[in-house]
């Protein structure tokens, strides 16, 4: 089982905390990779929170091609940052030649564009970049979105940390929201796109467990929105459903749980909102999940989310202190980072709960 972790803090944190969070949970690793998404960035990216940040890894040719595409579209580079590579011998990692983290100014044509128009431009650009880089395996684009930095690599999480110098705290690279996983969520090929967390237009998801309704989910999602592509991992479906329910349908976030794990009929029947719940169950039956899954997520407004499958088959626990809330698979990770917290405040979500961590770190528990 993949161990997953999501951290939200009032303070800027360095991604080393994610490595430490996952360290004691490493029995779930298979050295297939490490990936994290940082949102609400501090450090050198703090000055450009409104501008799109490109996270990609590519060959030299891929880098040039991507930059040409962005240039032709009218994007202009504002900031570029590269991790300092620490290529010791014997590290288990399959690195790409270039790791690119660049902030761009929107094209002039979008100077007065609405938020929606800008978002449309970003998703179209990201899809175009992905398509162009995929042709000859020239690179991988992980996110192209404001205030979001993503890194995914194949290899041992510990060694990937060493390779990118992530064990050393560094004020340049920090964020208030960090999500991480130390394993690729796939039972099939090891590919970078199959690594959690998955990101789409401000929504981040990481999950474990087999999505037994993968085929149903995928078949339905493919025609719902242009951004629902890839499907290298069956867990991408969790992201797309979250995006669909919350962003496209504009339903409140608690309806995510009603969509993926609808209540049993006998419970719905006795509820005042039965009509709505039955309609959701019918109309979105192809987005239901029916396997063992814990899902952690981050929403565009910075809130953090946790839901489990309806049989609560996978573990998850939430620990907190004044400054930070951590959601992760096993309590050991939290014990390492927050040994002195009040453990009676730990939350073990049940099969019907949606846990939301608001921006002031209030932990809300909604029963489905």
């Amino acid at each position, binding site marked *: 089982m993949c161990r997953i972790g999501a951290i939200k803090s009032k303070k800027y944190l360095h991604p080393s905390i994610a490595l430490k969070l996952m360290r004691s949970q490493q029995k779930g690793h298979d050295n297939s990779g490490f990936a994290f998404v940082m949102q609400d960035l501090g450090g050198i990216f703090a000055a450009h929170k409104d501008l799109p940040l490109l996270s990609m890894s590519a060959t030299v040719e891929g880098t040039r091609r991507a930059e040409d595409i962005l240039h032709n579209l009218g994007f202009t580079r504002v900031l570029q940052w590269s991790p300092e590579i620490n290529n010791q011998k014997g590290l288990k990692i399959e690195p790409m030649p270039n790791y690119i983290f660049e902030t761009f100014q929107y094209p002039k044509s979008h100077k007065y564009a609405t938020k929606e128009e800008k978002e449309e431009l970003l998703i179209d650009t990201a899809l175009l970049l992905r398509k162009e880089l995929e042709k000859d395996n020239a690179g991988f684009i992980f996110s192209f979105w404001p205030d979001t930095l993503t890194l995914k690599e194949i290899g041992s999480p510990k060694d990937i940390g060493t390779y990118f110098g992530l064990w050393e705290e560094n004020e340049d690279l920090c964020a208030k929201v960090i999500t991480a996983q130390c394993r690729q969520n796939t*039972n099939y090929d090891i590919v970078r796109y199959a690594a959690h967390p998955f990101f789409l237009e401000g929504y981040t998801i990481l999950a474990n*467990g*087999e999505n*037994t*309704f*993968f*085929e*149903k989910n995928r*078949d*339905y999602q*493919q*025609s*719902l929105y242009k951004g629902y592509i890839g499907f290298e991992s069956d867990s991408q479906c969790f992201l797309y459903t979250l995006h*669909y329910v919350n962003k*496209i*349908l*504009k*339903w*409140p976030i*608690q*309806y995510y749980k009603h969509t993926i794990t609808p209540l*049993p*009929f006998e419970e719905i029947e006795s509820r005042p*909102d039965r*009509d*709505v719940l*039955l*309609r*959701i*169950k*019918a*109309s*979105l*039956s*192809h987005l*239901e999940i*029916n*396997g*063992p899954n814990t899902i952690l997520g981050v929403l565009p407004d910075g809130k953090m989310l946790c839901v489990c499958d*309806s*049989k609560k*088959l996978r573990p998850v626990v939430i620990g907190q202190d004044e400054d930070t809330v951590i959601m992760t698979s096993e309590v050991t990770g939290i014990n390492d980072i927050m040994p002195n917290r009040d453990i009676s405040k730990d939350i073990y979500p049940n099969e019907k709960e949606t846990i939301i961590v608001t921006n002031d770190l209030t932990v809300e528990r909604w029963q489905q």
Partner: protein
Amino acid sequence: MATISINQLHMDDLPWIIEYDETKCIQCGKCSASCSFNAIKPVVEKRRKPSNGLQKPAFENILVIKQNVSFENHCRGCGMCSRVCPNGAIKAIRNPNDRYSVRYRAAKGDSLKKGGRSNLNTEGRTLDKIKIGRISQMTDPSLDAARHKFELRTPFGRILSADKLSFENKDGKMQLSSQLPPNRWIYPIIMGDMSIGAISWRMWEAMAVATAYLNEVMGIPVRMCTGEGGIPVRLLKSKYVKYMILQIASGHFGWNRIIQAMPDMVEDPAGILIKIGQGAKPGDGGLLMASKVAKYVQEIRGVPRADLLSPPTHQGLYSIEESVQKMFLSMNAAFNFKVPVAIKVAASVTSVSVYNNLLRDPYNIVGGFFIDGLAAGTGAAHEISLNHTGHPITSKLRDCYLAAVHQGRQGEIPLFAGGGLGQTGSFAADAFKLICLGANGVFTGRLLLEIAGCIGNDTGKCNACNTGLCPAGLATQDVCLTKRLDIDVAAQNIVNYFLATDMELKKLMGPVGNSTLPIGRSDALITVDKHVANRLDIQYVC
């Protein structure tokens, strides 16, 4: 003794020959008494006694059982004689030299009619070539069929895509802001679709009782379709009508009484099924032979005793658009747009086009698409239709599902598949496989008869439903035959079979790790047949 000409019908022409052992016979007469087809009778046979050659030959008369040889009275192989024989002295055996169908046509100048099912099984069953091969073991815990909770329910009625649901966000709570197409959650197996007239009143009532029992006592929301012969007014006006799907076919039989009863109904029916075609005889209308048009059938249907032929098509429908408008709109309107209205067609090369058209219907009033495959049963049909027309259910169901997937509209018009399910013994397996291939549910009629006592099979045993002489009291209106059927036993057996099927469905859902129906989960299926794999887009294995 009469002379015999070669053109005369002979025992050797018949499909079944009576094998009779006079040394075991005690001449109790039960075999002939029990034969509803009048296919055997006691006769006195003259026998020559063994002679020593010195005396003139002597003769003796002995009583034996002989088979009748005529187009009207001949053995259908039902086997009632061997059931009643205390000594196993008599049985019907299949005649490998059967030339009956040739003789019949040559003698009568008329097409041959049969009941039951096609007896020309050249295709083999695709469903039997499919196995459930994706078993949850490590990554996704499988479930315990006996003890975990499963939800075997499927939507019936038009389902709108989520973006078309009229939801309003009131303080974070979604609310419905207008009436949506009716939608019911029902058990994924619909029973019945056999008309009053085609089957006896006891069998029809047994199904209705079993349906009500499964709902009220067992909490299993099974629905029953009335078939095209109307519905008793007493049921229509009872609370149990909520479990009944009213059928309208091209003959429109029984609808006068339904309309008359509407003001007095206490519940809405479960749905309306517009029957366009049926799998056993696609392109042909219903057929009820005069022998079964009993007085009460005449009353409910509003017709005299005569062979009742429903036209092959609904006369008022000359295009798909008209169908949608006239039938669907009217049926929806009749129950104030609160009752799902679905359509049943025979599987055909053209089914996908029909389905696509319905999916695109802008009024969203088509609440289900029932596809009936060629192995389906029938009360009566021309043998030519039964054996030589039709389309197997499996690929057609799959085609329709994938056509919906192609448009991103899977599930919007629920698909129900039927026709010969359970033929090789496991109805649950057939149902499960079709569900994985995209069916929301399945329907069955013939199997219910077999549960209740039908002894017919796919290789020519009995299949005489058209004669009205059903030895099991199922497809007959004759009092002494109908009363062979114990309504309580028949209903109990149907209930038991459903409970067994329910458990067996769970025994298949558990291993694939699903507690809700795996509709469209074709990744759970495998086949060792490459052609089946390609055609259905499932995994080929060897």
